[in-house]
């Protein structure tokens, strides 16, 4: 069984919701990333989303744009991310890892080569922001064949018909984008999120995880009431950005941000 499915079935048994932190790999420098991953797991992460830095992150706000710039300045490439996952797996064989990013770095490596490598280092899912299911006809089956989950986004603007298509193709979990906007934008409206999740429940058994606009324990707890998982990105990446002159303090800060959310969600 894929580690993501395994994790959600455990959580379900425990009656808990998934906490899914996102960081951009290579930010502030590649040698920190694996340490951050372990720190996040210690603070209560159930699944890790590892961002693949890209030169043109069209769906991201300034916080993650800058994270991409820092990571790229340090020369972080997709192949380096795969090495990071391999290193992470030496000490952690159970926490699912999802790579999240844009299509071009994957196109450049080649779908099949990427899928082989990702599967062999222990990646569990792939979320390509600019690849809706209609454009995943070639890539999707290559992932599936290697037991890698193809994770797709659902947005507030997604029509009923599109949602059905996405549910039919999605694996691992559905990533519900809580608001119209880029990452790091304004806070979400939990009632609005609940209203959008309800019809999805009728279409799929996939866990529904919510991202965009979750910044602290309070918003995390609110969303956890209606969703199966909570995804937090910019709030963590902000801590990295604020501590560039004291990078040795970052892991501890990430832990405290995440631990606060964990506590609030489990309360």
């Amino acid at each position: 069984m894929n580690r993501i499915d395994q994790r959600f079935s455990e959580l379900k048994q425990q009656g808990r919701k998934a906490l899914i932190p996102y960081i951009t790999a290579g930010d502030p420098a590649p040698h920190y990333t694996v340490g951050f991953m372990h720190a996040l797991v210690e603070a209560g992460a159930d699944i890790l989303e590892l961002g693949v830095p890209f030169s043109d992150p069209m769906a991201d706000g300034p916080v993650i744009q800058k994270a991409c710039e820092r990571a790229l300045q340090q020369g972080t490439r997709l192949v380096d991310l795969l090495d990071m996952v391999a290193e992470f797996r030496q000490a952690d064989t159970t926490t699912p890892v999802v790579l999240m990013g844009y299509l071009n770095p994957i196109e450049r490596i080649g779908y099949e080569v990427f899928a082989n490598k990702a599967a062999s280092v222990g990646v569990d899912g792939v979320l390509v922001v600019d690849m809706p299911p209609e454009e995943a006809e070639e890539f999707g089956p290559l992932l599936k064949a290697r037991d890698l989950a193809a994770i797709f986004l659902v947005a507030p603007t997604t029509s009923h018909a599109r949602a059905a298509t996405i549910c039919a193709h999605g694996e691992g979990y559905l990533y519900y984008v809580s608001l119209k906007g880029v990452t790091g934008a304004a806070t979400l409206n939990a009632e609005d999120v609940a209203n959008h999740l309800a019809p999805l429940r009728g279409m799929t058994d996939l866990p529904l995880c919510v991202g965009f606009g979750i910044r602290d324990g309070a918003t995390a707890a609110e969303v956890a009431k209606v969703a199966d998982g909570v995804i937090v990105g910019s709030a963590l990446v902000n801590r990295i950005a604020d501590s560039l002159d004291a990078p040795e303090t970052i892991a501890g800060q990430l832990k405290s941000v995440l631990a606060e959310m964990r506590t609030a969600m489990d309360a």
Partner: protein
Amino acid sequence: MTVSATETKFSDLTRMPDARGHFGPYGGRFVSETLSFALEELEQTYLSLRDDPAFQAEFDRDLAHYVGRPSPLYHAERWSQSLGGAQIWLKREDLNHTGAHKVNNTIGQALLAKKTGKPRVIAETGAGQHGVATATVAARLGLECDVYMGAADVQRQKLNVYRMHLLGARVIPVESGTRTLKDAMNEALRDWVTNVDNTFYIIGTVAGPHPYPQLVRDFNAVVGREARRQSLEQIGRLPDALVACVGGGSNALGLFYPFVEDDAVAMYGVEAGGDGLETGRHAAPLSSNAPRGVLHGNRTYLMSDEAGQVSDTHSISAGLDYPGVGPEHALWKDVGRVNYVAANDKEVLEAFRELTHMEGIMPALESAHALAHAKVLAPTMRTDQHIVVNLSGRGDKDIMTVANIDGIEF
């Protein structure tokens, strides 16, 4: 991805894109989910209107009375004679209202915006011509207008920035990335994703996600339809060659598309050679044989490094300074219908000065790329052969750039 370009026949080229916006292996709709709905809506609006005689009539009327079409096909006799070969004819898009071909498309998209009832339009711009054309139609229709422009381009195209201000648009300088056209497009997409309910995104070239490459082509195809008819009237036959500059590729497709089945008409798309293809400092994805890639919603030839990061580009002309190219051009390159070549900055300046001196027509630096290639091509042809060059815009906006090169400060 399933159709390989090599299986595509020339006659198939008139039937592109397919229902999902693919031009063979290129094009498509690679966007984040939030935008999918808006693109489906736009596609439906466009498909329902494009064969609607009332919509066409309104478009034609605006082109005639607001833009000033048809634009003339002008025989540059003195310049042709000095080059000593083929006769060069200039399709005078520089004479359009606002000074470039860009307005053909903004008129069309503004009509679509009006149908959707959205009160706000946004645009990205490089040289500022598309921004000016968008600000112009927005002023005319009373729409709120925000234009994203790379901070480097704001510097080198100050005149157009002020024109947009005068027209009531807000120009938002983009400081991220390379601070040029690609970054302006990133920022416009971020705005659209945030304000998709009340905002219509007027894309300025035959790139972006489906259906933009198709509809921008269709709105610009008036250039080629006129040029074809004018050639028959003024030359007495079709021209032997067409030449147009290629940034995203809208003026080139506009001219080429109505000739695509005329096999005897050769076509040349001229990209920005910058400091020269061999230096790597250019903006010529097709002629430098860049790898395939995905950016801004479509698959195409895309200048990027081995890790898939999009490359910095360089060109004297802000309007061509873009690492990708419209997906239909990518297909036309693969099937061999168009020859894609590059002209470097130095050749472009020479052509700019030559046309200004010999014909009293000051071309945009973008259009001067096409002229630079015509200069190379004409002497290889006979004097009874004919080349139509798309003079896509006028050069007023570039006077500062050229003055700076001449060491003159205002």
